[in-house]
């Protein structure tokens, strides 16, 4: 596969599926923001609550906790596989804006869950690859009562 943006997104997805937290964190820019809005896709995060709104420092701590082995909802770790599709991206000069859809199936204990949404990646060119400056994940169920989200989307 030749498209470097797609290659990057697929790899990111695989790292999330396989709980490879440290490698996933290494994809992020130092000023990266990981955002999962709540209720609606376009809210003002300064006035409205999000499901996740991590700057790089908080993201580091989220990963430290996930990697610590002490997260109860990760004992045992869910098995996950996701499919990325409908990838569209635009070259904005210094940055690339990519949008994609995902469907994620998660199995743990007696339950199987399906999660889906659309992701916006703002990627900064870095050497031969990219770093994530913003990832905004717009969950289909952002306004529904949802089970725990104790994995990476």
């Amino acid at each position, binding site marked *: 596969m030749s498209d470097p943006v797609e290659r990057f997104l697929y790899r990111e997805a695989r790292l999330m599926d396989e709980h490879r937290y440290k490698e996933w964190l290494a994809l992020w820019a130092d000023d990266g923001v990981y955002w999962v809005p709540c209720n609606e896709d376009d809210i003002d995060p*300064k006035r409205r609550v999000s499901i996740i709104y991590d700057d790089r420092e908080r993201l580091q701590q989220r990963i430290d906790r996930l990697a610590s082995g002490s997260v109860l909802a990760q004992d045992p770790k869910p098995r996950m596989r996701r499919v990325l599709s409908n990838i569209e991206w635009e070259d904005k000069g210094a940055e690339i804006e990519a949008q994609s859809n995902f469907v994620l199936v998660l199995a743990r204990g007696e339950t199987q869950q399906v999660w889906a949404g659309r992701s916006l990646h703002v990627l900064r060119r870095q050497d031969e690859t990219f770093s994530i400056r913003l990832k905004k994940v717009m969950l289909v169920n952002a306004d529904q009562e949802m089970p725990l989200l104790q994995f990476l989307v």
Partner: protein
Amino acid sequence: MDSTVDFEALTSGARVHGSLYRDPAIFERELDLIWHKAWVYLGHESELKRPGDYIVRPIGRQPAIAIRGDDGTLNVFFNRCRHRGNLLCHRDRGAAETLRCPYHGWTYGRDGRLLVPTFEEGYGEGLRREDFGLTPVPRVGSYRGLVFASASAEGPSLDEHLGPVKEYIDLIMDVSPTGEVELDTGVQKLKYRGNWKLLPENSLEGDYHGPFIHRVAFELHQRRSGLDMSSLYENEIRDVIRALPGGHMVEDYRGATMAPPRRQPSEARLQYQAMMEARYGAEKARQLLTTIPPLVYVFPNLIYVMTHIRRVQPVSVGETYVYYQPLLLKGAPDEINEARLREHEFGFGPAGLISPDDVEIMERNQRGVAAQGNDWQFIGRGLHRETRQPDGGASGFTMDECHLRGMWRHYGRVMNGRAAP
């Protein structure tokens, strides 16, 4: 259900019977005797700022709508068209000129009056508009912006119901430099596979379970905020845990001294401190700013924890919805409120670093009580040192369970029909 069940026997002697978490007939009785009688927390005044603003939330199992009237009154109705009983308003929230039933077009004013019954001529003399207004929920009241409603016409007043818990609600609201908070901040929505009572039980005993299930999250929190929480565990403090009359529970941290944050305060923080001093005076402001606000449970469905209000919604005996709404401080610098949102998301909601461990534990708790070999839970910590309080409640040390005993005592009396919820 079997009317001979003695709920006080199932909740006395520092024991709680497992059937209270898993018996569908008991759940139905809870709806009748607790949820459809009690003062149920519905929402906050700040969610209904302008005339026509509405929120749609159930009282127990009964759909209700709260809408701000043209004269500023807060009207709460059963969310049911008087014509054929259709759900009048199916959205969570919004703003409406009028409430129009989508089924046959009957339209009501914000005050509940029937405006248009549609094709009225066909009713002959049989329909007097004034007889077909929306049915108001019998009792509505508010305290410090928190709106409560009761589906029962009778029972203690809201003031009586809240009683001494008002003092603790005051402490929460007084963290605002205007004395008012904003809850118009969006709603994190979560569901778990467990009984609704597990949530208040779990939410107000974090000091005991904290070192076991939140250890890493607390270490990370401390690293980030600089706030040293270890003092809470090293020496248990008297009178932190409180059972109040009416089934309310409190973790009262006024007696706990926290090691101050190591970081230098920001400009915004200094400005906020100055606003607090201007409003409350130096001494009270210092107290409000250097202690953790209390954790509060108002029976049956309102919980305040650190950053937010939690609203508990029973779905079935083994399923519960939880709604988290972070609380912003009206009039405080934007930077302070933004930091509060980030603090909240970091800890709470479906993807937080603290409350999800609680949720996972509650689901396991629900699975555990399916075992009926010895069908009792033990909530006896601190029984020997429980102190009666002048407010009619009792208090215990930081990790004691006297508040749980108080909640269950109240529950038993209500479920036996011997006390109002």
